[in-house]
């Protein structure tokens, strides 16, 4: 009874720093579980579909002519799409292509900023855009802008490195 009264007075008066933390943490829980988790699940399903349907190979093929415009081999497109799905996966693809000699060290460095720009974007569409509540029509606009910026970064890196 006394504790309850004390708590009520304290809440009205001033919150303890621990209480502020817990209130904030509760917001974090809500964001993580009600918004981030369903979006991550969706992204993983999309990735699974792309992997199983060989959709990735088709997209990578499409990138080949674009990559040659920037003085890069077609394999650079595979690396970029690998990163687009997930950072870890992209790194694996990049290292594999390097070992096979399909990309050289110079290509990797030129590609590096672009890989971070579009890296894990398919997940981030859910983890950033959907969580923040971006208007549906802006999802594709933002994705296209990322790819444009990615290619600008490739041009810049080709000029510097």
């Amino acid at each position, binding site marked *: 009874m006394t504790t309850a009264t004390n708590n009520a007075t304290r809440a009205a008066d001033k919150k303890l720093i621990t209480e502020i933390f817990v209130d*904030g*943490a509760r*917001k974090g829980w809500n*964001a*993580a579980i009600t918004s981030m988790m369903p979006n991550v699940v969706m992204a993983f399903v999309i990735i699974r579909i792309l992997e199983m349907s060989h959709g990735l190979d088709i997209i990578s093929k499409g990138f080949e002519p674009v990559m040659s415009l920037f003085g890069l081999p077609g394999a650079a497109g595979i690396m970029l799409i690998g990163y687009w799905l997930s950072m870890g996966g992209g790194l694996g693809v990049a290292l594999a292509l390097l070992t096979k000699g399909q990309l050289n060290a110079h290509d990797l460095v030129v590609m590096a900023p672009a890989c971070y720009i579009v890296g894990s974007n398919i997940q981030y569409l859910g983890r950033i855009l959907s969580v923040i509540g971006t208007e549906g029509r802006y999802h594709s606009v*933002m994705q296209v*802008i990322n790819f444009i910026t*990615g290619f*600008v970064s490739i041009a810049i890196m080709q000029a510097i490195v």
Partner: protein
Amino acid sequence: MQSNGDVLMTTDSSSNSSSKWSLTGVIAFCFACIFFSGLLQSKEWWGIFDFLTLAGNFGKVVHSVSTKVADGHVVEVVAKTTSFRGSGGAGATDGFLFALTLAPMVIFAMGVFAIIEHLGALEVARRLMEPLFRPLLGIPGICGLTALGSFQTVDVGAAMTNDLMARKLLNRREKTLFTQFQFCAGGLLTNFLMTGAVLLATAAATHDGTITTTSIGLVLVVNFVMKILATNLLRLYMALFDKTFDERTASMEAQLTAADAR
């Protein structure tokens, strides 16, 4: 409904009224900058001032063992460990566990963010970053700490942005621009530390010294410039192709509020 739309449009005036520079605010702001920057990431005592160090990690579990056999006897048992997510997962189920591994970061960061904000750091961020963020990105300075959070973990940035929106500190146009800023090269610092170092080190090892440590800095700088470029490309897009953005979102908001009321 109408008043709701008005609040969305005029975030600047609302933040002017209760603004004050406080010493605690400045200290909290400096603390936040260091805390979320990852500069003090360490196992030493100063690690207590670093977000990722305090965020910690899940324990390891054994996922397989292999044995070395010599002369028909087992001489050594080697255990391979992973996090509780295991290895070889895929699809929705793997996504669920992956999301669980991210949740503690978001919960912890939002708790710390609440304290930092309570101490007045957001107001300091707003004043310090406003002259930089407003012309460069078209977003208010109050996004400063959130931007810092998003360099570390995109989920922290997204949750913080949601929070700013809920408290009407960002309008929809600013929110959209800020989202592009976070989306382009998302989670840059953490992603770069986790995968970039390996990539560049491997590249350096195969090449004849043309790739040096400056490459690492160069990649980061180019990425930051590109974040700004992407935000401004969206600004350009909105100015050219979506002139009615504000009106449309305001009416959409009004409809939603009306639906909620029903």
